[in-house]
């Protein structure tokens, strides 16, 4: 079987698993929106703080945080599904299939990419219905979809690497809070200048800082909120590095067999 066909087939499989089990949709589609709704309403008074950027809609300002949260959850779901395949033996059967081994990782990541596209579209549409505006227009929205998808691939590759190294479903399921450290150490819901001093210093070293600011700039249509170019460069670099990590983990697993 040709590699690209195997990647597409495995990607389709990972998506159907996701959509056939409603309980997997709750954390990836519903949880981020719930948090967005609560944050947008519960902290919108922050707009009157000195130093808060002059934005049309507070909801639109926090949507990038939700999108990045979605990419983390989509990525984590990929790792959980991979660990589940390993624990229940399906991964061993895949290893016996006449396809390139790296397709097993790339197929999973292809599913994550498509999941992220659907998820981000869903978040943007729901937020639009609730009054968020996107001054960046269609190019900004399209750029956001691509940037989020690349970031989701990076997150999926990290969790797949952990799944391949450990093969433990329960470990992957308990990674949820640790992955959230990455979200909360980036200016996901608040401007970087208004984060507490310690967090502001830490956020400089978090790659998601540049991604979330890139999304904010794309949707807001202004470079004052961040740099899309730096956001893309960071996400692409992260995706390449973590995919190499995941394929390395696969090779290590195969050597142990």
């Amino acid at each position, binding site marked *: 079987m040709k590699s690209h066909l195997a990647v597409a087939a495995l990607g389709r499989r990972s998506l159907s698993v996701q959509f056939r*089990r*409603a*309980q997997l949709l*709750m*954390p990836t589609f*519903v*949880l981020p929106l*719930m*948090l967005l*709704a*609560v*944050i*947008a*309403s*519960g*902290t*919108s*008074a*922050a707009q*009157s*703080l*000195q130093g808060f950027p002059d934005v049309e809609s507070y909801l639109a300002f926090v949507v990038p945080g939700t999108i990045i949260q979605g990419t983390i959850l989509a990525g984590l779901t990929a790792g959980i599904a991979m660990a589940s395949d390993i624990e229940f033996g399906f991964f061993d059967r895949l290893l016996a299939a006449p396809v390139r081994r790296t397709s097993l990782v790339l197929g999973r990541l292809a599913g994550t990419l498509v999941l992220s596209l659907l998820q981000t579209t869903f978040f943007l549409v729901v937020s639009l219905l609730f009054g968020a505006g996107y001054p960046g227009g269609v190019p900004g929205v399209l750029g956001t979809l691509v940037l989020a998808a690349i970031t989701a691939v990076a997150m999926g590759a990290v969790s797949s690497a952990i799944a391949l190294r450990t093969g433990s479903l329960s470990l992957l*399921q*308990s990674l*949820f*809070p*640790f992955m*959230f*450290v990455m*979200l*909360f*150490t980036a*200016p*996901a*819901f*608040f401007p970087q200048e*208004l*984060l*507490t001093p*310690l*967090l502001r210093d830490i956020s400089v070293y978090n790659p998601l800082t540049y991604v979330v600011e890139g999304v904010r700039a794309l949707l807001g249509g202004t470079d004052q909120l961040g740099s899309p170019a730096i956001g893309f460069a960071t996400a692409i670099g992260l995706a390449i590095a973590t995919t190499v990590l995941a394929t390395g983990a696969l090779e290590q697993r195969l050597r142990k067999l």
Partner: protein
Amino acid sequence: MSVAVTLWRRSLNEVLRVRGALLPATIAPVVFMLGITGQFGRLTGLEGFPTDSYISWIVPLSCLQGAGFAGAATGSNLARDIEQGWFDRLLVAPVARPLLVVGPILGAITRSLVPATVVLVVGLLIGANLTGGVFGLLALYFACAAFCACAALWGIFMAVTFRTQQAGPLMQQGVFLAVFLSTAYTPEVLLQGWLAVVAPYNPVTYVLEMARQATVVGLEPSLEHTLPGLAALAGLAAFLGALAMFGLRRMGH
């Protein structure tokens, strides 16, 4: 009563004998506490915010969240017992059905002390103030224990209704929603939009007010801040308890 005690010990054994079983339930609220404080710490600069220490505002919320998740886990464990057939055997035992869930609820309350205490200690270490003294601390722990019991009743209701572990996310999301559709991030005067309308009708708003007597200046321990919380907890327990018992009675029919 020995049945309840035995099942209580069984649910505690699950924690003591499974390495790291409490880790996610403990770490998640700590991460949320640190993250929320880092992100929204400057909100204390808004006029009407009762304290200038945001960590003091968030610590009780994270304690309740940790206790709530520990409670909701009772539902997941019960769903597992139902799926694996263990609960069917208990149902035919010559004991009153409510006793079958009293033990796991007591177990959840005991377990909830761990995340609540870890969150409190971490919060105090990074700058929260224990302004409410002993009474405030008692109010905080009572709120956590009672909220844990309510979350456990919710989890049990979900477990006996769906009878599958796949309902686990629903149990957790119920707690998540209940906690965050309240004065979680800011006091009522600073809430805007739909949350300003919803929060006063959410019983957890009053449970939080009761718990915040421990750490928030301006919410000094008093009956005024305690009684609404107690009434809210009693109402929640009565409502969720009735749902859980209704579901339990239908089991096996």
